[in-house]
């Protein structure tokens, strides 16, 4: 099998420079490697060596990935900590080392989509070497996965991580003995401090190249009866294993692994066999063997296999690991005595959530203000310096389209960074799992899982990563339910809307309450809707709650910074792509067709701009929609802005500003009408905090206050909270649910619900004469 490697020869050149050519460890294999290399000399161009990182959740895998790749990693998506396969590239000499960070998994039998990603990757694109990261403070359970990886037959290196925690716990491991028992080199590491990483990479390099192999060790044995059952299955598997898998050219799935998988659960394993007749024969044989073992032991074969694996692991640990006689009371135990205390746990949780949001908004206010000032300054400069009357359309595109649309989103970057820093902290310290533990009973009433709570918290930042984070959920129905209600968690993009509207319509002493009320309304609706979905459309398939409570760990500043940086970058990229595109589009829709010259005459600056918007495509669309939203108390202007906000929620504010043609620039320099249809000014003051009454956006706020009653304002708030997930959400929903149907359903249901709720707000309010003029 090793001869099939299609790379490696140039690695050696690179390796020599990096000191990776130590050949003492496995002369035999080194010689083979040389032959293989010679045979391939001149063939490959840019040799790529793939290293996959596998391990349990919370084993420190992502930390090691970060330590190896540093900033040279790319997240293929907008995901949580590790939702899809994350990759990073390294260069060593001429060789490209591709490091793949697989999602954490407890075993190779997948339950959640995330675990499936890990297993399918290993089977379909076998890497040159697998680094199995095991948590030294939790050895037995970590080694269970190692047993299964061994059976996969891939070159394996074990990283004995958390060596520092091990020491603290008084656990001593005979590394050489462990290595001999496992049949793989073992390298102690401390991921958080980068210790042992270099050695780990060197060892992995040697193994990948075949310059050395781990010590010989027998495979995991399952006892005479099981082995007897495995024998014919192995034969069938080696004859029938598919060889046409894209990434496995000529390397069939290992027969032993396949035989074990067949015995455990034939339905899961059969797809790895070639179709008819091998699949049928293997299926029949597996069923027979399962029945036979069942009647022999009175236990299902998967129970026997799991027990045997743990027996094997236990044997290894007994030989190679020394632990203190008493389990020590650890910091985690002491923290949990308070944080998950029966009486204190929930209040502490509520206080933490409150503090988190308070800090995100409070600490973010100042930098948001600076960015706004900068944006306003740039907009004013452009308006001022632009030669009057020259290519005015271009100026308008720049100021009213690009600066308004994109700038408006970029301005909120500090809030977004803080929000993601907070979420990363909650996640990396291990508190997230406690939140799930505390809230599970509530979520169970909803028909969901404590684990669903984690994506929901992420949803306050952005719905897109939250939807991706639902991949940790095992039950498909629970996952779909969670995804469908996630947009009700008020995301960061809705913040600008609230900060514009709330001060416009509510007295300062009520503003904070309205703000929290809106957030709570979203949560409440999510709960009710989820329960409804779970008792109708997604009935049944209860999701068992089996969740590890990982030890509390101090996150490294580096990890938090890296995560925040990745998030910020994706946010900015969104601003530079989706938001830019749609801003220009919306600008065009509000600018064309141009108002005929005869109708422009006799109109003042702002009036002319308003007439232009009304005449434009967007204005006409808004007018066409006006009857639909009239029962809600909305007029065509709000309808236009709501339609404009479909691409991204933030755009609602830009749209409203365009429609109202409020511009500070017009007041400042009294330039021509077209020069002043800028939402920039209107947006500028948004997000300064709810406390702010009248800033530069006071103009827009005053206009709104003059045009609508507070009741209409509340209706708009409710509508914006509930309605119409943004296009990014629709796209990711379609991808994650696997069907357009769910994405469209979500879009329609939430929009309809928003309409109904806004209707209720308006009609009930009107009858009771609350907040009307």
């Amino acid at each position, binding site marked *: 099998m090793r001869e099939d490697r299609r790379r490696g020869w140039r690695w050696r050149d690179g390796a020599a420079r990096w000191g990776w050519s130590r050949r003492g460890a496995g002369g035999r294999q080194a010689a083979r490697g040389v032959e293989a290399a010679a045979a391939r000399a001149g063939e490959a161009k840019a040799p790529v060596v793939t290293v996959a990182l596998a391990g349990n959740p919370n084993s420190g895998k992502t930390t090691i990935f970060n330590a190896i790749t540093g900033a040279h990693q790319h997240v293929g998506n907008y995901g949580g900590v590790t939702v899809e396969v994350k990759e990073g590239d390294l260069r060593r000499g001429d060789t490209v080392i591709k490091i793949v960070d697989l999602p954490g998994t407890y075993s190779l039998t997948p339950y959640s989509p995330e675990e499936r990603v890990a297993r399918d990757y290993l089977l379909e694109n076998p890497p040159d070497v697998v680094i199995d990261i095991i948590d030294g403070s939790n050895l037995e359970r970590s080694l269970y996965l190692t047993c299964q990886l061994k059976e996969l037959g891939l070159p394996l290196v074990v990283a004995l991580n958390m060596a520092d925690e091990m020491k603290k716990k008084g656990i001593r491991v005979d590394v050489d003995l462990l290595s001999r028992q496992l049949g793989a080199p073992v390298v102690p590491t401390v991921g958080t401090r980068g210790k042992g990483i270099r050695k780990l990479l060197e060892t992995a390099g040697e193994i990948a190249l075949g310059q050395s192999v781990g010590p010989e060790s027998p495979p995991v044995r399952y006892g005479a009866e099981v082995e007897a059952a495995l024998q014919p299955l192995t034969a069938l598997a080696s004859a029938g294993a598919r060889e046409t898998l894209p990434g496995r050219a000529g390397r069939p799935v290992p027969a032993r692994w396949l035989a074990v998988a067949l015995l455990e659960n034939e339905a899961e394993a059969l797809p790895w066999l070639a179709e008819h007749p091998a699949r049928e024969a293997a299926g029949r044989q597996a069923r027979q063997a399962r029945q036979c073992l069942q009647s022999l032991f009175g236990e299902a074969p998967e129970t026997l296999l799991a027990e045997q694996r743990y027996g094997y692991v236990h044997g290894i640990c007994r030989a190679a690991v020394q632990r203190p006689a008493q389990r020590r009371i650890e910091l985690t135990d002491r923290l949990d005595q308070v944080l998950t205390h029966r009486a204190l746990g929930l209040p502490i949780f509520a206080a933490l959530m409150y503090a988190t949001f308070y800090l995100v908004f409070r600490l973010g206010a100042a930098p948001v203000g600076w960015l706004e000032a900068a944006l306003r300054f740039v907009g004013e400069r452009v308006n001022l310096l632009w030669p009057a009357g020259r290519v005015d359309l271009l100026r308008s595109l720049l100021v009213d389209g690009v600066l308004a649309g994109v700038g408006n989103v970029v301005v909120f970057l500090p809030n977004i960074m803080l929000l993601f820093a907070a979420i990363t902290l909650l996640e990396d310290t291990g508190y997230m*799992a406690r939140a799930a533990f505390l809230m599970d009973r509530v979520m169970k009433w909803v028909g969901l899982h404590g684990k669903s709570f984690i994506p929901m918290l992420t949803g306050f930042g952005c719905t897109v990563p939250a939807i991706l984070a639902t991949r940790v959920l095992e039950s498909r129905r629970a996952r779909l339910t969670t995804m469908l209600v996630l947009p009700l968690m008020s995301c960061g993009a809705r913040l600008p809307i609230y900060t514009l509207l709330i001060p416009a319509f509510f007295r300062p002493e009520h503003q904070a309450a309205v703000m929290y009320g809106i957030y709570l309304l979203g949560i409440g609706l999510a709960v009710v809707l989820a329960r409804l979905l779970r008792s109708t459309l997604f009935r049944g398939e209860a999701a068992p709650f089996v969740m590890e409570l990982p030890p509390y760990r101090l996150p490294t500043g580096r990890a938090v910074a890296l995560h925040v940086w990745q998030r910020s970058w994706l946010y900015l990229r969104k601003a530079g792509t989706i938001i830019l595109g749609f801003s220009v589009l919306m600008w065009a829709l509000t600018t064309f067709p141009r108002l005929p010259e005869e109708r422009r005459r006799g109109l003042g600056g702002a009036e002319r701009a308003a007439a232009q918007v009304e005449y434009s495509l967007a204005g006409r669309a808004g007018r066409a929609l006006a009857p639909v939203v009239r029962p809600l108390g909305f007029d065509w202007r709000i309808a236009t802005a709501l339609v404009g906000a479909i691409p991204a929620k933030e755009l609602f504010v830009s749209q409203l500003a365009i429609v109202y043609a409020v511009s500070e620039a017009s007041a400042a320099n009294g330039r021509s009408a077209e020069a002043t249809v800028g939402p920039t000014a209107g947006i500028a003051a948004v997000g300064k905090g709810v406390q702010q009454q009248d800033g530069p956006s006071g103009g827009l706020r005053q206009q709104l206050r003059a045009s609508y009653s507070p009741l209409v304002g509340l209706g708009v708030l409710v509508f914006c909270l509930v309605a119409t997930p943004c296009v990014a959400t629709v796209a990711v929903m379609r991808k994650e649910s696997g069907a357009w149907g769910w994405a469209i359903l979500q879009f329609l249901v939430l929009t309809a619900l928003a309409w109904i709720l806004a209707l209720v707000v308006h009609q009930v309010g009107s009858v009771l004469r609350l907040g009307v003029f």
Partner: protein
Amino acid sequence: MKTPATLDELAPGRAARIVGLRGHSPFKKRLLEMGLVRGELIHKVKLAPLADPAEYILKDYHLSLRREEARDVLVEPVAAGAGAMEQRA
């Protein structure tokens, strides 16, 4: 030997030895893989504030299980003071 009890009946602060898993749910295997195998000691730490789920310690880690899952775990209580603090073989 006492008659097998189930894990959900175990009082917080007590420990038990697992004698087997009941039922045929697909999650039985997940429980096995998480280390709930025959002969393993499991220590019940506490209940969540709303009385469900509960926190357990087994092997070297903390695990949270709902009552429904715990009901499928057959255990044999061991003397108080043993459990997770017990000397390991």
